C-alpha cells in the first residue's frame, strides 16, 4: 500500500445503500439492487474527487460472526489491516437493527465514521436523531447523509480523512460490569503480539468461542484452558451460552443508545406501509404481481408501444428504405453499404458476407434496442422503487406452500436482466440443496436477451396486431417452469429438505434517483449493443461461412457460384449437414429442419443470436426481427403453430448462453453438478416442447406414438407434483443449513 493512499472500507447491513454510496463516491456503476446479497464480493475504486482515496464496497452483513461467506469476506477484509478507516453505513430509518453491526465494527479498533443514510426519510418521518450524543456513545464521528439525494457526502469524506489520521479508535460502549470483568481477564491472557487497539475485539471473539479468531490468536495451551474456564464460569453464572450473553449485552447497549439519541415521531402508518397492505396482501399480492409483469412485457412489445414504434423505425427506415431528417434524405444502412461495396467493386462473395451475413445478423439484433430500452426502463423502475423486493416476499408464500424458499426467487428477479448475475445471486442461499436447485432453475426466467426471441415467436404465431398478450405468456412459462421444477425436484433425494428460512428487509418505496435508474438501463442496453458488435458479429460470420460453403456434386466451394445460382443452394451447405445430423432429436417437437436446429444451437452463444441467425439463414437481410417478411419466412419452417410454440418453449427453457453456463460451472464447482444442471434444463425444455407439440396435434386429431409418450410424461409429472412430500424428505437437512453457501460444496 503506498503511503499516500487512503483505503476506505464501506461496511453495513444488506440493503442499507452501500453500493449507491460507492457509486456516488467513485462514479462507478456497480450493480445496485433492492434486495440483499447484490454485492457479491468487495469492489474497489478510487474516489472521484481524490484519486489517492481507494474506496472498497463490502458485501452487506448483519454481524461479524462468520456464518455466511459475505460475513467471512467482510470480516477478513476489515481485520486484514488494509483499511485505514471504515465508513459504517447505517439505514437511519432502521437504526436499532443496524446498530448491532455498528457496535461490532467499532469494537474492531479501526477508525470508524458512522454514516446515517436515508437522512431525508428520517426527516420526512419526523424522527430526530441526536448525532452528537450518538457519536459520544459510539466513540466515532456520526454524519447524516442521503446517498440517493447526494447530501452530506463531502462532510462524510472529510470526517473519514480526519478519522483515518487518528489511526485507531476506542469503543466507548460498555457491557454489564460482570461481563466487562470477564473480558478484561481474557484480554490479559491474550498474547502480547495482539495490538492494544485490537485486544478488546479479540477478547470478545474468544469469549464467543469464535473458531477463526481463536485460530488467528493461537493462545498458549494454558491461556486457552484459562480462557475456557473463565467463559464456562460466566456461562454458569448467567445461565446462558457465551454467544447469547454477548448478543444480549449488545442489544442492551443499543437500547440505551436508542433511548438517549433517538426521538421517534408518534407512530403512524407510512406511505410504504399503506402500499404494502395492498401490494403484499395475502390474496391480492400474487394477482398484482402477475398484472404488473403482464403490463411490463405488453408495453415493451405491443404494436402500439413506443418501443415497437422505435423498432419499426429501425426496421423500415434504418435497415429498410432509408429516412429523411431535416429535409435531407438518408439511405438505409444496407443500402449505403451495398452502394459502397458496388463502388469498390466487391465480388459476390464479399457482398454476400457483408450484407447477408454481418448486416443481416447484427442488424436483426440491433433492431430490438428500442424495445429492450423500454423493457429495462420498466424493470429498472420496479427494482429501484422497491417493488421487486416485495415480489420476493409475495412469492415466498407461494414457494413455501410447495416446500421451496422465497430466497430462491431473488436470483430469478435478478435474472430478468441477465442470467449471469441471477446465477451468481444464488450464493445468498445457505442450504446447499436449495442453492443447487435454484442455480438449475434460475435461467428458466426469460432474460433480456430472450426478448428478441419472444418477439420473433409471437410475430410468427399471431402477427403484430395481437402480439402484446403473447409476450407475457412466455415470461410466465419461465415462472411456471421454475415452480414445477422446484416442486418435482424437492421430492427427490438429491434436493429434499426443509426450505431455507427467508428473512428480508423491505426497503421503503421511493422514486428512483434518475442517475441510478439511468445506470441500470444503460448498463443493460450497452451490454446488449456490445454483444451485437462482438460475439454476435463473430457468430454471424461463422454461420454465413457454414451456410454459404459446402459440397455440391463432389466439389467444395462457395455454393452460389458452384451451384450455378441454384435457389436452394443452402441445402448443400455445411450448416445444413450439421443441422440435419442433429435435427432428428427435434422430430417429436415438430421442428427438425436444419435451419431450426442451427438457430437453436446458435442460441447457445447468446440467446438473441437466434434472431440474428434466423435473419441470415432466411435471407431477409435488410429486415430486423420485427419484420413481417422474417416472421413469414420463419413461420414457414414449421408445419403447425404448435411446432412454433414448441420451438419457443425449447429455446427459452433449454441451456442458457455460454456465459451463464460458465457461471453455473463456477457456482456448482463440480463437473457432475454442472452436467446435471445443463442436462436437466435441456431435458425439461425438450419435454415441455414435446408436450406442447403433441397436445396441439392431438387437438387437431393427430395421434402417434409420441402422443403416448407425451401423455405418459405428463402423467408422471402430475404424479410427482401432486404426491405428498415423502416422509424422508425433511429428515436430513439440519446438517446442511449451516454449510457454507459458496460455490464449493
Amino acid at each position: 500500500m503506498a503511503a499516500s493512499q487512503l483505503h476506505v472500507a464501506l461496511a453495513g447491513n444488506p440493503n442499507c445503500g452501500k453500493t449507491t454510496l460507492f457509486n456516488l463516491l467513485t462514479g462507478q456503476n456497480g450493480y445496485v439492487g433492492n434486495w440483499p446479497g447484490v454485492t457479491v464480493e468487495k469492489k474497489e475504486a478510487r474516489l472521484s474527487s481524490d484519486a489517492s482515496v481507494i474506496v472498497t464496497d463490502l458485501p452487506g452483513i448483519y454481524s461479524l460472526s462468520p456464518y455466511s461467506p459475505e460475513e467471512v469476506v467482510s470480516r477478513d477484509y476489515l481485520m486484514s489491516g488494509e483499511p485505514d478507516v471504515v465508513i459504517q453505513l447505517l439505514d437511519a430509518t432502521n437504526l436499532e437493527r443496524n446498530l448491532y453491526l455498528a457496535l461490532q465494527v467499532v469494537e474492531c479498533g479501526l477508525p470508524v465514521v458512522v454514516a446515517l443514510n436515508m437522512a431525508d426519510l428520517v426527516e420526512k418521518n419526523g424522527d430526530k436523531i441526536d448525532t452528537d450524543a450518538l457519536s459520544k456513545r459510539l466513540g466515532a464521528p456520526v454524519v447524516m447523509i442521503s446517498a440517493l439525494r447526494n447530501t452530506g457526502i463531502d462532510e462524510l469524506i472529510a470526517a473519514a480523512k480526519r478519522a483515518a489520521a487518528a489511526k485507531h479508535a476506542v469503543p466507548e460502549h460498555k457491557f454489564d460490569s460482570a461481563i466487562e470483568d470477564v473480558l478484561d481477564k481474557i484480554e490479559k491472557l491474550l498474547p502480547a503480539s495482539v495490538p492494544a487497539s485490537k485486544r478488546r475485539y479479540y477478547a470478545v471473539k474468544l469469549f464467543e468461542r469464535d473458531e477463526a479468531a481463536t485460530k488467528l490468536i493461537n493462545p498458549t495451551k494454558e491461556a486457552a484452558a484459562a480462557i475456557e474456564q473463565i467463559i464456562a464460569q460466566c456461562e454458569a453464572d448467567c445461565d446462558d451460552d457465551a454467544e447469547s450473553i454477548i448478543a444480549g449485552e449488545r442489544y442492551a447497549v443499543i437500547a440505551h443508545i436508542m433511548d438517549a439519541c433517538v426521538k421517534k415521531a408518534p407512530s403512524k402508518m407510512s406511505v410504504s406501509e399503506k402500499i404494502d397492505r395492498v401490494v403484499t396482501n395475502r390474496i391480492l399480492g400474487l394477482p398484482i404481481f402477475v398484472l404488473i409483469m403482464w403490463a411490463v412485457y405488453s408495453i415493451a412489445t405491443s404494436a402500439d408501444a413506443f418501443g415497437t414504434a422505435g423498432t419499426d423505425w429501425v426496421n423500415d427506415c434504418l435497415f429498410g428504405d432509408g429516412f429523411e431528417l431535416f429535409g435531407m434524405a438518408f439511405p438505409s444502412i444496407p443500402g449505403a453499404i451495398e452502394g459502397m461495396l458496388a463502388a469498390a467493386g466487391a465480388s459476390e462473395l464479399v457482398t454476400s458476407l457483408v450484407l447477408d451475413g454481418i448486416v443481416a445478423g447484427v442488424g436483426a439484433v440491433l433492431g430490438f434496442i428500442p424495445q429492450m430500452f423500454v423493457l429495462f426502463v420498466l424493470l429498472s423502475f420496479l427494482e429501484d422503487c422497491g417493488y421487486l423486493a416485495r415480489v420476493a416476499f409475495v412469492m415466498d408464500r407461494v414457494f413455501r406452500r410447495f416446500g421451496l424458499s422465497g430466497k430462491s426467487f431473488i436470483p430469478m428477479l435478478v435474472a430478468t436482466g441477465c442470467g449471469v448475475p441471477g446465477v451468481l445471486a444464488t450464493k445468498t442461499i445457505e442450504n446447499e440443496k436449495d442453492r443447487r436447485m435454484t442455480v438449475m432453475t434460475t435461467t428458466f426466467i426469460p432474460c433480456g436477451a430472450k426478448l428478441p426471441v419472444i418477439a420473433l415467436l409471437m410475430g410468427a404465431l399471431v402477427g403484430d396486431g395481437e402480439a402484446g398478450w403473447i409476450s407475457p405468456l412466455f415470461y410466465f412459462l419461465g415462472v411456471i417452469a421454475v415452480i414445477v421444477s422446484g416442486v418435482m425436484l424437492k421430492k427427490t433425494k438429491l434436493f429434499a429438505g426443509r426450505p431455507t428460512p427467508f428473512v428480508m428487509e423491505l426497503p421503503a418505496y421511493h422514486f428512483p434517483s434518475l442517475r441510478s435508474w439511468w445506470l441500470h438501463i444503460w448498463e443493460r442496453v450497452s451490454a446488449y449493443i456490445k454483444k451485437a458488435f462482438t460475439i454476435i458479429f463473430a457468430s454471424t460470420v461463422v454461420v454465413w461461412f457454414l451456410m454459404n460453403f459446402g459440397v455440391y456434386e463432389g466439389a467444395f466451394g462457395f455454393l452460389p457460384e458452384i451451384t450455378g445460382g441454384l435457389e436452394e443452394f443452402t441445402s448443400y451447405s455445411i450448416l445444413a449437414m450439421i443441422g440435419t445430423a442433429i435435427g432428428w432429436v427435434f422430430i417429436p417437437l415438430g421442428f427438425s429442419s436444419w435451419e431450426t436446429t442451427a438457430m437453436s444451437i446458435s442460441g447457445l452463444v447468446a440467446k438473441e443470436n437466434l434472431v440474428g441467425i434466423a435473419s441470415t439463414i432466411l435471407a431477409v437481410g435488410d429486415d430486423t426481427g420485427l419484420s413481417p417478411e422474417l416472421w413469414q419466412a420463419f413461420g414457414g419452417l414449421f408445419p403447425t403453430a404448435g411446432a412454433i410454440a414448441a420451438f419457443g418453449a425449447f429455446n427459452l427453457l433449454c441451456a442458457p448462453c455460454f456465459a451463464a453456463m460458465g457461471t453455473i460451472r463456477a457456482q456448482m464447482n463440480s463437473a457432475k453438478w454442472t452436467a446435471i444442471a445443463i442436462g436437466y434444463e435441456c431435458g425439461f425444455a425438450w419435454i415441455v416442447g414435446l408436450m406442447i407439440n403433441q397436445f396441439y396435434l392431438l387437438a387437431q386429431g393427430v395421434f402417434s406414438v409420441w402422443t403416448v409418450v407425451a401423455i405418459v410424461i405428463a402423467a408422471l409429472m402430475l404424479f410427482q407434483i401432486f404426491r405428498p412430500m415423502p416422509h424422508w424428505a425433511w429428515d436430513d437437512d439440519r446438517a446442511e443449513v449451516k454449510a457454507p453457501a459458496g460455490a464449493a460444496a
Partner: protein
Amino acid sequence: MGIADIIILALVAAGVIAVILRARKKGACADCAQGCSCDHAKHGAGACPALKGVDRVADELGCGVR
C-alpha cells in the same frame, strides 16, 4: 478477387480474431450483462467473480490475514 475484396475480408477476419482474443482474455464474462464494463474485466481472464465462485473470492480475501 480484387483488392477491395481482400481488404474487406482482412477487416472481417481481424474483427473475428479480435472477438475470439477478447473472449479468451476475458472469459465468458465478455458476454454477461456487465459486458466487460465491470472492474474485473480489466484484470483479464478469471478475474470475474461470476466465474470464480464465492469461496475462492473469500479465500483470496482471507489470504495473508494474521
